[in-house]
């Protein structure tokens, strides 16, 4: 078999695999555009008929999706802000030195990264209840979830800071910059891309957060879109087209960001996970 033919066969197989794998996403979009009767058609209609954009109008008007997504944005922004402000400096120091203390700190961070939120939420909720933090449920959720995203962010950013040559920072110090000056003028700008991608990943995490919100935020008006979705899931649910329209509205921004920044996201993730 010649090289060109092999190439084409492999490409075809790859596309087929991707199509099978991504079918659930296709099914989400197709279902979201169907009428109530055609979602229950037997056999299922694999191609959409006339797109029912009304489904999207309905979830805007009836299901309050704007409010839910607004709350998700608040939580995601708060988490990203706290994580980036508190975590960046720590990541920088952990990248800059090599000694027993740094190893110990790094070890602590790695161990905290693995704590499952569904298990941590019990003590956090009881603790927050006793100090009155549950009065501010979204803020409480942000505080709790930031402790989950911070170790992840520190590990990813540490990898980004390690790519900044020490010599550049030392040159700035020789030129009379203070440590703070060198950090903001030299190190941060050079590690910028890595930091931004890490922050974006934290933001995506916060945007999809569920466990803490579901446990801490009781007031319907303050709940994020992840809880907004579960509100649909009654035992004998029939309006799958509306649910899928909700899901599509919720994830399309995330998927768009991913498609645009695919290469950087993949590089950032793999750098953090294996080093």
């Amino acid at each position, binding site marked *: 078999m010649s090289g060109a033919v092999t190439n084409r066969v492999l490409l075809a197989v790859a*596309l087929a695999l991707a199509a099978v794998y991504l079918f*659930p996403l296709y099914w989400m979009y197709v279902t979201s555009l169907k009428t109530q009767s055609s979602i229950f058609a037997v056999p299922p209609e694999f191609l959409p008929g006339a797109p029912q954009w009304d489904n999207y109008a309905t979830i805007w008007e009836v299901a309050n999706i704007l409010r839910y997504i607004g709350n998700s944005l608040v939580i995601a922004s708060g988490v990203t802000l706290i994580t980036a402000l508190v975590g960046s400096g720590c990541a920088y120091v952990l990248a800059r030195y090599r000694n027993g203390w740094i190893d110990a700190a790094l070890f602590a961070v790695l161990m905290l990264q693995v704590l499952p939120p569904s298990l941590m939420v019990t003590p956090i909720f009881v603790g927050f209840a006793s100090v009155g933090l549950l009065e501010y449920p979204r803020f409480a959720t942000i505080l709790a979830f930031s402790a*989950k995203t911070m170790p992840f962010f520190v590990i990813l950013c540490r990898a980004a800071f390690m790519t900044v040559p020490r010599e550049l920072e030392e040159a700035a110090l020789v030129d009379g910059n203070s440590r703070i000056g060198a950090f903001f003028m030299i190190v941060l700008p050079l590690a910028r891309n890595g930091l931004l991608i890490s922050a974006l990943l934290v933001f995506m995490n916060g945007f999809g957060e569920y466990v803490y919100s579901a446990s801490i935020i009781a007031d319907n008006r303050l709940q994020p879109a992840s809880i907004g979705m579960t509100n649909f899931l009654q035992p004998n649910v029939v309006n799958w087209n509306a649910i899928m329209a909700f899901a599509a509205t919720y994830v399309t921004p995330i998927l768009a960001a991913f498609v645009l920044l695919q290469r950087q996201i993949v590089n950032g993730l793999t750098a953090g996970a294996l080093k």
Partner: protein
Amino acid sequence: MTRILRSLRDGIGFDVLLVIIALSYLLVFAGLPLIYNVIISFQTVDVFSLGTLWHPNAGFDNYRAIFDDPLAGRVLWQTIVFTLGSVALQFTFGFALALFFHQNFTGATWIRGLFLAAWVMPGLVVGVLWNWLLSGDFGVINHLLESLGLIEDPVFWRSNVETSLYAVLIANIWYGTPFNMILLAVGLAAIPGDLYEAAELDGANAFQRFWTITLPMMRATIGAVLALGIIFTLQQFDLFAAITQGGPAGSSTVAQYWSWQLSFREFDFGRGAVISVLMIIVVLFVSLIYVRSTKAETQL
């Protein structure tokens, strides 16, 4: 005073301050809860005593209640099945895909990247998608299985006690495969190509090359991926919430979901904390092995 300020601005104090801020945050919102978790697992914490920092002492009552619970054995078994099943199949599919995309062909990297789209989605949305795909009467999966002749009657994946755990397992395999694939792909890319050329010259076939070069060279990566797989699977919660809610009759409840149910559905935080304490010990043990093994391989 000025010396401290100078050090903060120009010396080691600057570094110490940066680390201390982050570590204090983690101490308050992760370290203290870890300790508090152990304390409340020995206390009676319900809606009435919630709101105070200290609760009535319960001794080992919560622990006894959990171990005597008829659900405990089932949950333990289901947690093991779910975790090992997820890790084994995510790894197998991930490795197969990584090997496939490791061949040089047009667009390989780009198409491989498409798989990761699933991985950036919120777990809850993935769960709701699979809830619909696995629906009993009108689910598209049942339709496909029927038209392939694999099943005769629709399987009620989510509402049948025999299959509910597998409904979540299937969704989790789909969700976790791309992450396995990409980490293994990084490992594959790090193997020097001339090793394969040399083996080919020596007449080794593809199968022999895989067993004698790929697998041994990938040992560290495979260990890391399997450990991370266990850690991430023990964190999985959203899919249960979106697909079966642990039911019917606890047939798809795993430990981390049970802990949450006890705390936030039955408002028995003491018993929820018991499972939380036990599971956190397991998770920390696995990650200890993981961190130690990566440290030995790469000097962290």
